[in-house]
C-alpha cells in the first residue's frame, strides 16, 4: 500500500471492462473517486453497488457502464435516478444490462466474497419475481435456501474518514458494506478525508490494515454531497436538486461538463 494521488490511483487500478464496486451506504460515498474515473473516461465497466445513487447515475449518464449489479436504484428520499431510467428505458447513452438482487442478497454476496467463498446462502428471494439466483439444500435440515454467487469485484473503492501515515484506514458511523467490499475485491482504493499521525479509537470504528488496501488517496470532502460522520453533513438539498439537474439530457451533460469533467482532481 502506498499513499497515492487520486488521479494516479484511479489510472492504475481501474481498467476499461473491469467489475468495479464504489460502495457506501448513504454515508461515505466515494464521489471524488467516481468523478476521477469519469474524467479518465473509463469505459465498459460493470458497476456493482447495493444502492447506486447519484455517482452511478452520473457514470451511467456519461457512458462509463455496460452493466449494473444492484439492489435499489433510487435517489434516497427524493425519487428516481433519471439517468439510470433513461439508460434502461431508452438505452441512452448506451444500453445497460441489469443484474438485480435484494439488499440481503447483495450484502451476503459481498460477505461471501470477503470470506473467499464461491457463494452466499440466505433465506431470501422467496415469492419474488427477481431472477432466483439458485438454491441449495441444507445438508443438516433439508431446508431449501437461496444461493447467490459471491461478489469478487476487480476493484473495490470506498471513502473513509482517515488513514495514518502507514496507510491504515479508519472509518466509523454507518459502515455499510465497505469492509466487505475491500476484502472481496482483487484490488482496492480508499479515499480519506485526512492523514493523521495516530488513529485514536472511536466508538464503533472499523480499522482496515494497510496490507489489505492497494492505494490510499487523500480527498478532503471526497464524499460530498454524501457525508463523512464527524467531518461534514449530508447535503440533502443537493440530492433534491439532482432530481432537476438529471431529468434532462442536456442539462445533465452541461452540469457534468462544468462541475466534474472541467474540474481537476484534488
Amino acid at each position, binding site marked *: 500500500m502506498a499513499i497515492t494521488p487520486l488521479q494516479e490511483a484511479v489510472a492504475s487500478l481501474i481498467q476499461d471492462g473491469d467489475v468495479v464496486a464504489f460502495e457506501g451506504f*448513504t454515508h461515505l460515498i466515494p464521489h471524488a473517486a467516481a468523478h476521477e474515473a469519469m474524467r479518465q473516461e473509463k469505459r465498459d465497466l460493470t458497476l456493482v453497488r447495493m*444502492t447506486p445513487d447519484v455517482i452511478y447515475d452520473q457514470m451511467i449518464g456519461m457512458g462509463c457502464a455496460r452493466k449494473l449489479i444492484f439492489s*435499489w*436504484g433510487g435517489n434516497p428520499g427524493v425519487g428516481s435516478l433519471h439517468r439510470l431510467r433513461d439508460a*434502461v428505458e431508452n438505452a441512452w447513452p448506451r444500453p445497460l444490462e441489469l443484474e438485480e438482487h435484494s439488499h440481503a442478497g447483495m*450484502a451476503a454476496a459481498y460477505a461471501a466474497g470477503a470470506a473467499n467463498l464461491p457463494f452466499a446462502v440466505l433465506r431470501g428471494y*422467496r415469492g419474488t*419475481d427477481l431472477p432466483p439466483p439458485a438454491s441449495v439444500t441444507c445438508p443438516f435440515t433439508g431446508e431449501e435456501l437461496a444461493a447467490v454467487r459471491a461478489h469478487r469485484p476487480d476493484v473495490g473503492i470506498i471513502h473513509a474518514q482517515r488513514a495514518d501515515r502507514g496507510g491504515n484506514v479508519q472509518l466509523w*458511523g454507518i459502515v455499510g458494506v465497505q469492509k466487505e467490499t475491500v476484502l472481496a475485491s482483487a484490488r482496492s482504493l480508499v479515499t480519506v478525508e485526512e492523514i493523521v499521525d495516530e488513529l485514536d479509537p472511536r466508538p464503533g470504528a472499523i480499522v482496515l490494515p494497510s496490507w489489505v488496501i492497494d492505494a490510499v488517496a487523500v480527498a478532503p470532502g471526497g464524499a460530498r454531497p454524501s457525508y463523512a460522520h464527524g467531518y461534514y453533513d*449530508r447535503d440533502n438539498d443537493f440530492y433534491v436538486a439532482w432530481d432537476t439537474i438529471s431529468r434532462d439530457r442536456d442539462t445533465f451533460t452541461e452540469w457534468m461538463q462544468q462541475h466534474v469533467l472541467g474540474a481537476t482532481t484534488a
Partner: protein
Amino acid sequence: MTYTSDEMMAVEASRRLTNGNICFVGIGLPSVAANLARRTHAPGCVLVYESGTIGAKPTRLPLSIGDGELAETADSVVSVPEMFAYWLQGGRIDVGFLGAAQIDRHGNLNSTVIGDYASPDVRLPGGGGAPEIASSAKNVFVMLRQTPRAFVERLDFTTSRGDRVRVVVTDLGILEPGDGELTLTRVHPDVRIDDVRAATGWELAVAADVGETSPPTDDELTALRSLEAA
C-alpha cells in the same frame, strides 16, 4: 384541527405500532408513521433502519435511511450484512413497514417496474430490503395511497410476497386480510365505501360491518407537524 388525507394515513399507521414493537422502517411514509408513534403513544417502539442503525431516535425526519442523525442517536450501529443476516433474517423484527408502487388483493407488492421488465414503461428503484422484510418480519404493515393505478388486479412484477401482510393503511381507509384476500374493514372520516371501491383496480371485498377510524387528535397532529417541520 383540519388535516390532510396523508396526515390521516400517517396517524392511523402510527396507531398500529405498540410500545416495545421492534420496527424495521423504510424511508418516506413508514418513517413518518413510526417516528410519530414514538412521539405519541409508543415511546418504547424500537426503530431499525436498514442502514444498520438499531434503536434510532431521530429528532427530525431523516431524508435518507442513512442520515447521520440515525447513527448518532442509535443504541447500536451494525454493518449492512449483519443487519440483514442477524437482525432481519434472525427473526428479531416484529413489524416490517413497506410501501410500493403497486399492490394486489393478496398484499403482494411491486416496487420494481411498471410494464415489461426487459423494456419497461417506468423503471422504479427496485426492491432494496423489501423481499426479505416481507418474508422475515413477523408482521408486515403496508402504507400506500389508494388509486386504481396502485391497487391492481395483476402486478407487473412481484417484488415481495404478501403472506405476512396484516394491514394496509391507505389515505382512504384500512384493508386487512380476511377470507383469502384484502378486505376493507374501516374507512377514514368522510370517506364513503364507494369511494374506496372506485379507487381499487379489482372488485374490492368489503367487511359486513365497516367501521370508521377516529380523526387525528390535536396531539397527534401537533406531534406530526412538529416532526415534519423540524
